[in-house]
């Protein structure tokens, strides 16, 4: 999809960030370029130390890039201090002011912007309603629970109506159920406010369920940008395929590349259809990935053959680990029914069927 610069909320152009000097120099961001569209729920996803928080801090203005530009609606904001950027942050630690009440926290940004008292009061009330915290407006922030603090942090960052809201792993401190609730809550808030959200997380599930688009990062670089569906089903690189979800890696010879599709001849001799990652260079031993739920087991002859090594029951589905004749382990995920077991037993000889639209050829 071509990016239209005028429609982009944030444009990061060739940004580098180097920490330390001389021998101890570390490039936290290695020439990163990415465009974030207006009204988008955009996620920076990657393991810790991949540079996602560094990128967020550069956009917020807490750090300044060593090289490159950061544009907000076409205007370079990289040299501006944080208090001159129409961008607000929800911190991982929430960073609520402990000496102020919930309402005072939410109104702080507006107060600093010099808004009239009546307007601040009305806006704070509106925000309290938005995050369903009306009853606790007079409480100190130390007197409310983690989930409530999270809501206050959100309301505080949204109150000044920023152009872009930055969220630095805001859900990581919450327990599983609360996190699920807040994921839905965040999506709702984004829809209702129409503000561009840039969300940082290391949780791939969180990224997949919430984002319009995801940028997968590792060691200071953006590896792939795309919709959750793109990222999951059409990973471009091994890192992306491995980091998001479970995947089977197979080695294959690729032939007949055209229109993003190709034939992959597996070690077993079978040839399957596959989609090809952008930028793939034809070579002998390419890597093909197949998601466990996109493959099927058969008692007869499949594209691959092997022996059932392990069966793991997960409630919703069962993972069946098959030791292929070529020596690798291939996992197949099978939806469970109430009535019967998975239909296979340890040590059984089985075939693996890979569908027509199940395989993706990586570029590395």
């Amino acid at each position: 999809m071509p990016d239209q610069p005028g429609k982009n909320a944030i444009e990061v152009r060739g940004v580098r960030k180097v920490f330390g000097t001389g021998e101890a120099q570390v490039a936290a961001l290695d020439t990163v370029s990415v465009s974030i569209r207006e009204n988008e729920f955009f996620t920076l996803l990657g393991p810790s130390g991949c540079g996602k928080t560094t990128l967020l801090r550069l956009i917020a203005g807490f750090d300044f890039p060593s090289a490159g530009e950061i544009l907000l609606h076409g205007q370079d904001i990289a040299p501006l201090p944080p208090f001159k950027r129409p961008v607000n942050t929800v911190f991982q630690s929430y960073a609520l002011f402990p000496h102020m009440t919930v309402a005072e926290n939410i109104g702080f940004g507006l107060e600093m912007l010099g808004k009239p008292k009546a307007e601040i009061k009305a806006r704070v009330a509106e925000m309290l309603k938005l995050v369903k915290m009306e009853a606790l407006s007079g409480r100190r922030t130390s007197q409310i629970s983690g989930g409530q603090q999270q809501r206050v942090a959100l309301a505080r960052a949204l109150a000044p109506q920023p152009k872009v809201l930055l969220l630095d792993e805001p859900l990581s401190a919450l327990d599983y159920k609360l996190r699920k609730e807040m994921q839905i809550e965040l999506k709702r808030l984004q829809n209702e406010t129409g503000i561009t959200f840039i969300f940082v997380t290391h949780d791939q599930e969180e990224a997949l369920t919430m984002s319009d688009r995801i940028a997968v990062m590792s060691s200071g670089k953006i590896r792939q940008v795309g919709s959750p569906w793109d990222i999951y089903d059409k990973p471009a690189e091994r890192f992306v395929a491995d980091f998001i979800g479970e995947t089977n890696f197979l080695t294959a010879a690729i032939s007949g590349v055209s229109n993003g599709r190709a034939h992959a001849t597996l070690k077993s001799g079978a040839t399957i259809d596959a989609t090809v990652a952008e930028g793939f260079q034809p070579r002998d031993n390419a890597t093909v990935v197949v998601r466990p739920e996109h493959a099927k087991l058969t008692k007869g002859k499949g594209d691959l053959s092997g022996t059932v090594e392990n069966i793991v029951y997960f409630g919703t589905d069962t993972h069946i680990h098959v030791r292929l004749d070529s020596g690798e382990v291939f996992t197949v995920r099978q939806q469970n029914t109430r009535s019967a077991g998975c239909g296979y037993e340890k040590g059984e000889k089985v075939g693996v069927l890979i569908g027509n639209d199940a395989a993706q050829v990586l570029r590395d």
Partner: protein
Amino acid sequence: MASAEEVARQAQRKDIRDRWFLSAPALLVIFFAATGPLLIVLVYSFLTPGAYGDVKWQFSPEAWVSVFLERDIFDDTLSLAAAHVTIFWRSIKLAIVTTIATLALGFPTAYFMATRSEKTRDLWLFLITIPFWTNLLIRTFAVLQIIRNEGLINTVLIKLGIISSPIQILFTDTAILIGMAYVYLPLMVLPIYASMEKLDFRLVEAGYDLYASRFQVLRRIIFPLVRPGVIAGSILVFIPAIGAYVSPSLLGGGKNMMLSNLIELQFGQGRNWPLGSALSIAVMIIVMVALLAYVRNASRSEVRHG
């Protein structure tokens, strides 16, 4: 056999007994070294002065009367003791100015220290405590050496041709203030630093993020959160400053009498121990009232802000 509850109760009783036992030495020292002498001073303030110092065991409220009042030697009428009031006010003023000066110097210093890396922080802390290694008298003489007419400041300024004749700093109120600020600065820096070190600097970032300028972040976020340190530092400086003796005597040249000089005089040449005692207690009461007002006011404004 004793029930579990009884065992727990016994353990608790033993725990309380142990605590009293362990704190007994400290309590004894506090009683005999602080409360005891204070009681003696209080009793002396209600006695009659002896001819050659000391006291006569005869009740008299005279000492307390002469703390702020003067009895005319001819007609026994009472009038305000202007000299005493002036001295009280001078000492209080000096203590207030010293507190403000050390706060103005100490706050940025503590902020600087708290924002260093963890390793260098210890070094700064160490440097701040170095003056404590030397006797107060010697430190004051060192200041004297620096500011006197032939001292470091004047010599350098004259050599540089900035001034032609030395500036008279020594034996002025400025000299007293320089000496006091120098001596009491660590007492201000350390408590503020202790508060500042605990400050979560992500709150500062959050302040900047919410459009607060540097000054607003200082006033609305940093200052309220380190207020306990500022209060502690101010108390630690104000109390000894009001009774300061060495700096005013040496650096001020004893030209202007301070409270401490006045009290010393009563026990020495004045031969009026009861008046000296009454003055001491009066100073203590003033300090206590001032501090109570300050602490209450400070904590009240905290509630209002939060």
